């Protein structure tokens, strides 16, 4: 773990709150995420996990608190969020590939239009990453021609093509048929081994145990417990977490 004193966190969330009208979806959340951390967020449905993740890149606007990303407060109206988002890759439950573009175009449109890469450079990088996830032969296919597991691997590669400093995953395997979960987790495991900083919302407890450097338990919009995975799963402290783990393990 990189949580030693003195190092500045990559992401520092300070007293984050998010209200939907009267509902407090996030209630005073504070977390520090350091470079190389693989933070898993678990908790019952409706506890605010997605909202938390989406606030990190401001797909959802927070109602209170601050988020420092690489030292800059990105909740500040004046910051150019489009610039910071390029450094935060996001992977969605529903993949959200662009259906009107080939796989290759899905992967290169960001680097080409946002980072001024040449077509050749963007495509070379995309092909290199496609090779790594075993999908180089599908470069010219359209998303509708792929299986769910393939789509999600492409979605991960699309985010990676932007060379992000952190990757956010919102239940990346929840929409997949069981036999396709493994191939997506394998890609994520590789990323973790390469020390990519990751924040992962998931229900895959076994995977969390194996890959996480830290696990956070959320309920009712609050962080109830936070620990390294061994302690978290073997010796949960709060009743809520014990109860939750007894149901999902």
């Amino acid at each position, binding site marked *: 773990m990189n949580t030693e004193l003195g190092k500045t966190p990559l992401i520092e969330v300070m007293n984050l709150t998010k209200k939907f009208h009267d509902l407090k979806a996030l209630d005073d959340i504070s977390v520090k995420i350091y470079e190389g951390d693989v933070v898993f967020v678990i908790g019952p449905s409706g506890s605010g996990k997605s909202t938390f993740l989406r606030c990190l890149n401001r797909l959802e606007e927070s109602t209170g608190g601050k988020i420092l990303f690489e030292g800059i407060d990105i909740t500040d109206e004046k910051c150019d969020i*489009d610039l910071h*988002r390029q450094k*935060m*890759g*996001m992977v969605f439950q529903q993949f959200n590939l*662009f259906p*009107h573009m080939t796989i290759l175009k899905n992967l290169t449109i960001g680097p080409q239009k*946002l980072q001024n890469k040449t077509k050749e450079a963007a495509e070379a990088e995309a092909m290199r990453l496609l090779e790594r996830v075993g999908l180089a032969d599908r470069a010219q296919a*359209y998303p509708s021609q792929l299986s769910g597991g393939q789509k999600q691997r492409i979605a991960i590669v699309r985010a990676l093509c*932007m060379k992000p400093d952190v990757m956010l995953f919102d239940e990346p395997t929840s929409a997949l048929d069981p036999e396709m979960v493994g191939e997506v987790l394998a890609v994520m495991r590789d990323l973790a081994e390469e020390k990519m900083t990751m924040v992962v919302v998931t229900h895959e407890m076994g995977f969390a145990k194996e890959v996480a450097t830290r696990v956070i338990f959320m309920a009712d919009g609050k962080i109830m417990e936070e620990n390294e995975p061994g302690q978290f799963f073997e010796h949960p402290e709060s009743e809520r977490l014990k109860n939750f783990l007894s149901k999902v393990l």
Partner: protein
Amino acid sequence: MFEKLMNSFLHNFIEEERWKYIADGLFVTLQVTFFAVILGIFLGFLVAMVRSTYDKTGKLKLLNFFCNLYLTVIRGTPVVVQLLITYFVIFGSVNIDKVLVAVIAFGFNSGAYVAEIIRGGIMSVDQGQFEAGRSLGFSYFRTMIYIILPQALKNVLPALANEFIVLLKETSVAGYIALQDLTKGGDIIRSRTYDAFMPLIAVAVIYLLMVMLFNYFVKQLERRLRNSEH
């Protein structure tokens, strides 16, 4: 019987080169429709962008208000009244080509319907597409251009094509401002020959053929779009 029809044909179209009323009128109708369609797409596109930006982000409140006003007025009044107001009120004191007046009136009319079609198309694109674009780092505007609009337009292409068929037929009221379009051309022949059947049926057949031809293209287009999954 045949001879009677033949005589009527000669009388209505060949004598005094009366067919020219039809030909010139057809040209005017096509001209008005073509340019009104272009104006309509342009306006409709702008209005749709303003309206859906407001729906999605709450921005452009004032512009959205004016767009709503435009849509309400255009869709709540008859096109003939709009045409008459454009000619006699808005351009009443200036000497202006009637074709241009018709293009403006029908273009603004069509724009309102096109706007709602395109806006429907934008709203029909999954919100996840928008979020994927934004999360890569694309601005709202560039997400629209690269990701949302291509999908939206594909969804509404048949509906847009239909709108143009409607417009082609609607221009037949251009005679209200004494513009000699296809309909007016047929009517002029009728008033000269005192024969209603031949010229009016001819006009109807020409409209019908144009609409059928266009419909055929729309059907082809729909089929091609259905077959290509992406």
